[in-house]
């Protein structure tokens, strides 16, 4: 069993973080430029989050299993959580199937510059939003 036992807590925590990212201008700009619709499918607990960059603003939708996504990413909640701390080697996670990505690779790589500043924001977000116990030193 992973460290997140509550589906609601993980969805609120990570979904809230994604919401938080969409108001950071430099990140929002890169996400909108990608025009991607990305579906993150987490397990243990099961949570689905969609990051829709196809419109004029970035939309984060909880539990959206219907929208046709450009890219789908599959991983456990623990891997996702550690990833946003910069503690998961993306390439290693992909080759070892700890993460599975489906979709056009060039589009996925285009997202990497958006991810970089997000690493620094995640611990602060957790501390400021009542999730300090989940901060990894």
């Amino acid at each position, binding site marked *: 069993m992973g460290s997140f036992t509550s589906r609601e807590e993980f969805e609120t925590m990570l979904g809230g973080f994604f919401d938080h990212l969409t108001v950071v201008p430099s990140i929002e700009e890169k996400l909108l430029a990608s025009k991607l619709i990305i579906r993150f499918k987490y397990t243990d607990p099961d949570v689905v989050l969609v990051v829709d960059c196809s419109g004029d603003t970035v939309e984060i939708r909880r539990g959206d299993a219907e929208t046709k996504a450009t890219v789908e990413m599959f991983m456990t909640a623990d891997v996702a959580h550690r990833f946003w701390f*910069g503690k998961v*080697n993306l*390439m*290693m996670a992909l080759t070892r199937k700890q993460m599975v990505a489906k979709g056009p*690779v*060039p589009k996925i790589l285009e997202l990497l510059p958006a991810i970089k500043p997000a690493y620094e924001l995640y611990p602060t977000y957790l501390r400021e939003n009542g999730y300090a116990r989940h901060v990894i030193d």
Partner: protein
Amino acid sequence: MRGGYAGRVLHIDLTTGRHTEAPLDPEVARDYLGGGGIGGRLYLDLIEEAIAEGASPPNALSPKNPIVIMTGPLTGVKVDAVARWTMSSRSPLTGFWGDANVGGHFGAELKSAGYDGIVVTGAAATPVLIDVQDGAVEIRDAAAYWGADVYEVTDRLTEDLRSPEGKRGQVLAIGPAGEKLVRFAAVGTRKRHWAGRTGLGAVWGAKNLKAIHVRGSGEVLIAFPERLQSLREELKTLYAEDLLIEALRAFGTIASIDLGALTGDVPYQNWRTGFWAGVDELSSVAYQEQLLTDNATCYACGVRCKREVEVKEGPYAGVKGAGPEYETLCVFGSLCLNTDLASIAKANELCNRHGMDTMSCGATIAFALECFEMGLLGSDHRPGPTPQWGDAAAIVELVDLIGRREGVGDLLAEGSAAVAARLGGAAAELLSTVKGLEAPMHDARGAHGLALAYAVSPRGACHNAGLQYPIESGGMFVADVPELAVELEEQSSVGKAALNVATQDYGVFFAGCAVFCNLGARPLSAAQAVEMVSCVTGVDYSLDELLTVGRRVWYLKRGLSNLFGARAEHDRLPPRLAAALEDGPTAGGVPDMDLMLREFYELRGIDPEGLPRRDVLEGLGLGDLADLLHS
């Protein structure tokens, strides 16, 4: 020999102008497999008698220093990611063992001309080229080509030596840098594939050897074609679903910069800082938008990871052809804080035309920029304004000066370690070299085992001496070799000595001898790699036997560097690469070199002086090497 091998090695003595053929000994093929394995074995065979009689090992630029070009058993087989071959000799840059692993079409063409390899000894009195056409060998006058750059000599020889029916062969050539003995001169084929590292182009120049042209009409015999076809079908599915292969197709090796910037793999400003915002301007997407025009590939490889580029406007307009690879992008980009992609394409083209290893050239320039900044180099070395970090024009100019050996370029053409020794003072603290070879563009502070790999690599700081880099960085996962499939924490030194041993044994077999491409062949399991070698050669190898081949060849190369003087004190990271960074993803972390080296020496049976123990060498059938090292 049933399949894979042509069964013959061509020996050329440039001093006498004579050539002979020798059968490839099946026992040597079984024990050393091919590529750098057979290359190293043949090299040792050529020099050991004289050393046993008391002579010193040959100087790198001496006529007595042989060059061995060797294919592997898979070279020339129509399968993805097996087109590679190797070149071996003593390095004029480091003074130690030198080898290079090359792609393209030359290896396949050499085999179709009837040879597994070419051994070149002696030196010609005047410039020559070697022409091999389906077993007919001629040493020709090359005076008309001497001085020509690599692009020009490739084009001219391809046309001048094509068959009456119009069939073109493959040209392997040096440029002016090799002729002028630039210590990191390269040898190039098809204007885009290079025997780049360790400066073997200067060995060619010292021998007055301008080029080798090969043309053949034969085919590689496959011992078990039906088994190979079955494996091909299996791999087709594997490749179609592999994300890394898709990334290679889309962006080539450049894809590494996007991930590397996240993990701390990309070095900045001569390795002294861990963060640089400008790296985003060198991204794979920026490269694609600003430079890319097409993909290119090696013989029979569907991955097509090579880049074709064009600069259409600005001061570097006119650059057209082979594009910079990841390493080149970094040495002239992030290492010099240069965001100008067009200037990087120009620096790459200049290196190609002069015939120089972009990695040592760019690293030497980054080192020089810091020397200028510190006043160790000044206007007496290069008139005019002091070159600054990110000064694209100065970087391009320095590349050209090095290729021409003009002005400060004549000094920098000796390589950064030699320049530091000449300048003295604090210059040595700015070096990125191990055993005199400038480190590749992967920062070992982000993957501690890589630091050990750099330190103990027989040819100097190198990420391709084994498979430590792709395994530890996560780009390759060999699930069916338990020692390679361990849980990894990159920024830890624990267990990394054992991992290095495993990645060396497997990597030397896989990428050094077989010769699989360590990029395009990454999806293969060990079982699939062994099956491919077995069904091509007709020898039913076990994984254990091929790991023993890898281990034997690792010790052979280590021992050759030992013969040339390498000792324990050369198994060290330079201070610059071992110092903690203040910022970036790896801030504060440094590899524990003492721990890793102590464990590694123990695991490898290396004595405190740095020599492999006699019993270890004898146990691998390297008794002659043991005699030379321990007599």
